């Protein structure tokens, strides 16, 4: 069997099995039915959709090298380690390649204070509850109060860069988080104002 045929069979298989899964999930639904009304997402949901997006997680990685791109890959050759202050090593640092703004000629992204989050703020591989707990824990968040966290999330230029991520080296726009900047800021403020309650799951 040639590869194309294999892929075709695989594709058919996937389609078929998803159909079965989907129908077993909801036996009453039919393909022609109206899409179900969206359940209202809480401010926490909206905020976490952003914080778990690769635009954020890439700079809160596990390990000490940044992840890159929409597929969060590690470039073995280019991964500058975090270093003592999150800005890389003594001689080769984030600023060797990144400036305070995106560079459309090269596709190298940039924003003020381009850096990796400290190790205590690793998000990669964590659940949204774990991320939230860690983010609000002064032991691990650099001694920040909820108000300071709110300020970081809603005003820091590096965080807000997520909505102006620029183009990559092939000239293609980078993916933005699934929630708009405005809705994100509103959600963060609401969540903090209402006591920053972290749901159980």
């Amino acid at each position: 069997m040639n590869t194309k045929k294999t892929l075709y069979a695989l594709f058919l298989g996937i389609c078929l099995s998803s159909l079965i899964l989907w129908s077993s999930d909801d036996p009453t639904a039919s393909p022609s039915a109206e899409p179900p009304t969206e359940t209202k997402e809480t401010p926490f949901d909206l905020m976490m959709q952003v914080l778990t997006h690769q635009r954020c997680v890439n700079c809160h990685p596990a390990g000490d090298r940044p992840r890159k791109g929409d597929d969060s890959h590690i470039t073995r050759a280019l991964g500058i380690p975090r270093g003592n202050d999150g800005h890389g090593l003594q001689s080769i640092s984030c600023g060797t390649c990144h400036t305070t703004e995106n560079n459309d000629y090269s596709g190298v992204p940039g924003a003020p204070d381009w850096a990796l989050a400290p190790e205590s703020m690793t998000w990669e591989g964590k659940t949204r509850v774990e991320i939230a707990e860690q983010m609000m824990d002064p032991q691990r968040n650099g001694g920040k109060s909820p108000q300071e966290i709110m300020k970081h999330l809603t005003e820091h230029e590096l965080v807000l860069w997520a909505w102006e991520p620029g183009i990559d080296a092939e000239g293609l726009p980078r993916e933005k988080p699934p929630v708009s900047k405005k809705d994100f800021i509103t959600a963060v403020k609401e969540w903090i104002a209402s006591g920053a309650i972290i749901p159980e799951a």
Partner: protein
Amino acid sequence: MKITFNINGEPRSIDTDGEAPLLWVIRDGLNLKGTKYGCGKAACGACTIHVDGMQVRSCSYPAKFAEGKEITTIEGLSQGDNLHPVQQAWIDEVVPQCGYCQPGFMMATAALLKEIPNPTDEDIDNNIINVCRCATYYRMRKAIHKAAALAKQNPSE
């Protein structure tokens, strides 16, 4: 826009698109060809220069940021005939093959030695991540250690 900066100790002014990479301003505008184009996205280090003493990959550095800065390129690494210890070490160890990437490596090494005057092999591995297709890394490593020793002999450098 008009941009003014010091390059290799000389004040220069140039009219350029401020967003244009500084690399091309240096190469074509100022006709300093030692700084090389390699990748255009800060991935290879062939275009490494110093901006206010810090190493920068000039292919991804907009010219406008050079305003008022002190720029050094490979042409300004030596003081006339007085070679920089890094260049002397490169000659002593006969490092270059094709030579194209070497200015970038020497600029990166000069920046490294400024921060870490006696680098270990591990310091070198971590901080020198430029690309050399002739793969002269083995001699470069020797030359970097040699340069550190030379710089110690002549602390004025």
